């Protein structure tokens, strides 16, 4: 059974339905007490970082997520969920020196795309289908070709990621980290549940990710 954390940040139904379309059972978890009962845990989410962290804290999720991660069972963060897994974010920070604290389960910090660097005038949010490249085999990506396209919609991204945690990269005004992987923890900046066949392939990999390690 896959558990999807409901902490009031966006619609979780598409994540649930995507797993169901793959014949994987997924239930929406409304309480951290349910976490030990699932084999796999997903932290999805869209919206503001500080709201996301405040909601998780208010509902008692941070300890439950850390405990789950410590069991070695697979954990997947999606979009805001990826950003919450790392140490901190500039989003909503009172000053650059006082970033909003995240769960700190993976190393990294969240910063905004800068749109004023000439000659690019990068548009923010980064919205649409962009391609992935990777140079270390990640079981979440097993069976997918390099340069496969996935759907992104975000204004912030994770940086300062060690090489053994960064997995796939994407290019938007420069390379940024699109997926993270360490041990039993995965994270994607894009939305696999909105990325058609490529995304569903990754979610299927997640349902059997333990058996794919070492094969990718």
């Amino acid at each position, binding site marked *: 059974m896959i558990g999807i954390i409901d902490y009031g940040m966006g619609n979780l139904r598409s994540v649930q339905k995507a797993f169901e379309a793959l014949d994987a059972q997924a239930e929406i978890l409304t309480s951290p007490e349910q976490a030990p009962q699932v084999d796999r845990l997903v932290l999805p989410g869209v919206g503001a970082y500080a709201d996301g962290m405040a909601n998780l804290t208010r509902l008692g999720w941070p300890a439950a997520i850390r405990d789950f991660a410590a069991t070695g069972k697979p954990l997947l963060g999606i979009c805001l969920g990826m950003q919450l897994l790392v140490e901190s974010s500039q989003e909503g920070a009172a000053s650059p020196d006082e970033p909003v604290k995240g769960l700190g389960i993976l190393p990294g910090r969240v910063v905004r795309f800068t749109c004023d660097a000439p000659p690019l005038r990068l548009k923010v949010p980064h919205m649409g289908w*962009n391609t992935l490249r990777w140079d270390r085999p990640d079981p979440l990506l097993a069976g997918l070709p390099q340069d496969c396209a996935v759907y992104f919609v975000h204004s912030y991204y994770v940086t300062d990621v060690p090489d053994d945690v960064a997995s796939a990269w994407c290019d938007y005004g420069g390379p940024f980290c699109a997926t993270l992987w360490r041990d039993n923890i995965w994270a994607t900046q894009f939305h696999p549940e909105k*990325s058609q066949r490529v995304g569903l392939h990754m979610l299927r990999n997640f349902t059997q990710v333990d058996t794919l390690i070492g094969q990718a």
Partner: protein
Amino acid sequence: MSVLQFAALLTHRIIPCLDVKDGRVVKGVNFVQLRDAGDPVEIARKYDAAGADELVFLDISASHEGRAIMRDVVRQVAEQCFMPFTVGGGIRTIEDVTNLIQAGAEKVSINTAAVVNPQIITQTAQRFGRCATVVNIDPKRVPATEFFEHRRALGLPVEGAWRTSDGRTITADEATDQDVIFEVHTHGGRKPTGLEATDWAKQVVELGAGEVILTSMDADGTKDGYDLEMTGAVAAVIDVPVVASGGCGSPEHMRQVLTQTRADAALAASIFHYGTYSIHETKAYLAQAGLPVRMVEAV
């Protein structure tokens, strides 16, 4: 830091737009092998399979009941199509926005309500993020003299300098019938707002819009191509994604708007619905012309 070399850029999105009235797709969709040409969920599934990058649903229901049905349509699409989609039309309040997002819409597109009550843009962005907040802007070319009459009639000031369609700036006193202004309209181009399109675009982004769908009321329905001048003018002044809309009759029109303006995505309705061009043909044409597009991979 990655030293990987990237072959591709962020791709241009090709977006079919579906008009939905009381839960049924209108303006006809002429796909082969479609059991029910009016069923938005089935049509969405077809476009999903065909490799459309995103869908826009425009609810044109006039009634309260029609909009309630739309929420159900959104719920079903979200459960069956694993692709991004935007829902617009008939959004008046933050409650309407909340209902659609909770039903599973990725993004909501606000049009008339944004003009009447600009705070709804900020409320939507605060509650659901900029990334979910889309504003529809529907400009139409009007003689500058008429534009200033509209502003006066609406009690809006006319002082200052105003952008003309050819990129000059004029004052109300200098305006002649030869000068043209891109004036934002609502109600399908029938109702002038007194807002100049580039000014309004900057304002909606400041208020919290994360994307703009820009529909030319002059080009819409003509199939003569997008209004390149208007799209170029508006896309030049904002740094959020812009979806060009109105007038598409061929993949070449898409190529023009995607190469000659800063538009990121191209929306079309009838060329796809009537099967004049498939999504695949369209993207193959654009790829051939050297544009970054997502060709659907076999997994």
